[in-house]
């Protein structure tokens, strides 16, 4: 059983979207290695509130690594040092007593800071609204087993579908590109038979919205894949590019 730790935190504080932000230093004392990273921040915040000070604001909700709310840039890496782990599932045993931890929000023009460590990621919602769906109304659909799907295809679509829309891929990319996110969404539906009727229209609409939101271009550095907490594969980007070019060349709809 390891001992409790004392840590120094350097945290980005920014009152609101318009305000100028700055790094502020805090100390986190008597931190148990069994705490999650967010619980460590809870402890710091309880201390601030007791002094009538403004607690550090960060997005979080399920704390099970699935809702995609948490979005901390920890020591220069989205979601911190542990591979395939969201900020909420990161535990303090990944840090050492006496360590200084730098915590920043996602940095991307398309994700403006709302306050402190929380950013506005609604650009992702708008990309989904542009085409991330299959146009079926409730009712009047065929029996589920009338659409057989080979297991390998279903599994591959599933791998793309595990994206939690957190935005770590954008935060990791030096160009703040959203290609990994968009391609995962495009891929899931492009792989499945249900997604075929709108396949080429979808990819064009989603890419157009991605560009309109101000995300950067992909230069194949692979940082997104390395930092993705759900291990979404960069091969999705290749698939999306292929579909996009096909759409532009032969099926000029939208």
């Amino acid at each position, binding site marked *: 059983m390891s001992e409790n730790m004392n840590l120094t935190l350097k945290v980005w504080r920014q009152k609101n979207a318009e305000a100028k932000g700055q790094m502020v230093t805090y100390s986190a004392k008597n931190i148990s290695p069994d705490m999650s990273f967010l619980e460590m921040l809870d402890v710091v915040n*309880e201390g601030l509130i007791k002094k009538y000070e*403004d607690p550090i604001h960060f997005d979080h909700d399920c704390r099970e690594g699935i809702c995609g709310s948490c979005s901390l840039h920890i020591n220069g890496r989205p979601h911190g040092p542990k591979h395939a782990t969201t900020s909420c599932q990161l535990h303090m045993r990944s840090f050492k007593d006496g360590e200084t931890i730098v915590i920043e929000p996602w940095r991307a023009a398309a994700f403006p800071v*709302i306050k402190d460590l929380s950013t506005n990621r609604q650009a992702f*919602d708008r990309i989904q609204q*542009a085409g991330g769906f299959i146009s079926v109304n*409730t009712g009047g659909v065929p*029996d589920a087993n009338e659409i057989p799907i080979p297991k390998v295809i279903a599994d591959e679509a599933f791998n793309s579908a595990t994206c939690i829309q957190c935005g770590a891929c954008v935060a990791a990319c030096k160009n703040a590109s959203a290609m990994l996110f968009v391609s995962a969404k495009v891929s899931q539906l492009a792989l499945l038979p249900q997604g075929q009727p709108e396949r080429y229209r979808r990819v064009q609409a989603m890419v157009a919205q991605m560009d309109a939101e101000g995300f950067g271009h992909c230069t194949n550095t692979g940082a997104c894949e390395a930092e993705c907490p759900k291990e979404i594969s960069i091969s999705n980007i290749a698939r999306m590019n292929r579909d996009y070019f096909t759409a532009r060349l032969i099926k000029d709809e939208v």
Partner: protein
Amino acid sequence: MMLDSKIPDGPLAEKWSKHKFNLKLVNPSNKRKYTVIVVGTGLAGSSAAASLAELGYNVKSFCFQDSPRRAHSIAAQGGINAAKNYQNDGDSVFRLFYDTVKGGDYRAREANVYRLADVSVNIIDQCVAQGVPFAREYGGLLDNRSFGGAQVSRTFYARGQTGQQLLLGAYSAQSRQIKLGKIEQYSRHEMMDVVTVDGQAKGIITRDLITGEIESHAAHAVLLCTGGYGNVFYLSTNAMGCNVTATWKAHKRGAYFGNPCFTQIHPTCIPVSGEHQSKLTLMSESLRNDGRVWAPKTKEIAEKLRKSEIKVTDLKEEDRDYFLERKYPAFGNLVPRDVASRNAKEIVDEGRGVGKSGIAVYLDFAESISRLGEDSVRAKYGNLFDMYYQITDENPYQQPMRIYPAVHYTMGGLWVDYNLQTTVPGLYCLGEANFSDHGANRLGASALMQGLADGYFVIPYTIGDYLATIGPAAVDTSHPAFAETKKHVEERIQKLLSLKGTRTVDEFHRDLGLIMWEYCGMARSEEGLIKAKGLIQELRASFWKDAIVPGTNEEVNTSLEKAGRVADFLELGELMVDDALDRRESCGGHFRLESQTEEGEALRDDENYAYVAAWEYKADNSPEELHKEELVYENVKLSQRSYK
């Protein structure tokens, strides 16, 4: 007011189709003249918003999260039941209905449950059409598994993240309607109150969680799809933001609260590791298929284990008590959730708990690993073992897991009739937020089914009846009720912001959770509940004097958000205790010490308690009035559950 459940006449299997025919319809060209507010974007909310928008209604959708996709339905792991009988193993709508009524310990409405089972098959079709990637067999068809002790394989699943995949399906349908302009989405907005005009719901008041602006929104009807209230216990498997505020405010505006004391406590969660703990993590109950639950035979051995003087793996067989296998030889480790949970608590109360805190029992896979081999155990449970390892830093392949029950789901919620309408006309309640389908205990893989049934296949029919009745005259926020309710909301916010005491809101919340867990959790007694009532009243008074709520309204202020939610939990907690006091029977997950068999097992009392308790709010700090909806069973025979 008399409770009218509006259950249609006629044979069980024909009630819903007959009812659908009798409901009034809204002319297609008139639908665009109506606005419907949907609060919450989980499975119930998103599916309702999308389906209503597709029909042509204008929908305003609200969630406190930054995106509709983050609602807590996203975290459901196991699966979703449907009576497809794809496995040819004898499943049917009637069997799913029967299992659900029995599993709910005979405290749910037959007609509602039958409808749920009936539409379950449509849900799977709908989700597949949306591109939800359910697990499949090599032949390309859908795979099923048996879940939660069911004797048929009717559970559809998507690895360990069925909730996320179903919600993404509903979110995609909703996104499409947002783009089409039929849904106006308000994310990072919290509902603060319901506005009623002449007793009918006509809108809501919200707070923009970024700017603090208090806004009024008018509509022809309001749907609350705001989830459960498990966070009244502070520690639960719910997300941090889950709260009772929307339904509680509706309750105070006239909606009766049904069976508030019915909470589900799940046996296989990762135990609390310390004071700092903010939430609990569930592990699928499928683990009990191969894990053996045990505790040290004596307090002395448990003490040595807690102090790490001996290692658990060195403990001899004769020093271990496989208490579920010992007490329930027929079912062993596979007894239902409630029985497993209650027994773990008894062990801990006897001082035989393990782990640093002493609040846990073991779930041991050593026997399975030696019988099946580590690889086969990994193939079945690998992701759960990894999750456990990540959170606890203990390797479950080498030593037993530590588990302890945690609050997971609330069967209680706003009372609704067969149309999902609350006692306030125009105010509907869907999904976990209502009380309707699970009785005193919810079966595994039934929550997702109910959320989507309500949203996709019930509300689109039933809401039309009400809307056609009130007519399509335009609505706006000019009625004085909007200004009054808004003022009420603003005054309360100012009252909260004036609290400059010495204790944080989280500290009050934690205290409330401890009271609820101790006295209104798995085991309850009259003496304990009376004590809890006093403690909650004291805590509530102390909150309104000594809490700290820093900052202002006109900014992002999570302390203020939490304070409002905890203030509501402090009121709900007392109602839960009152409801538990009234129900002098052991039922579902709730063991009432005064109501047990000679062998110490739960004893249900059908003669006196086969009713839904629907509570009517009267005034602050005064007792609520209990209304009873008698439950009539015409198609299932009530029997006492036994697992010996």
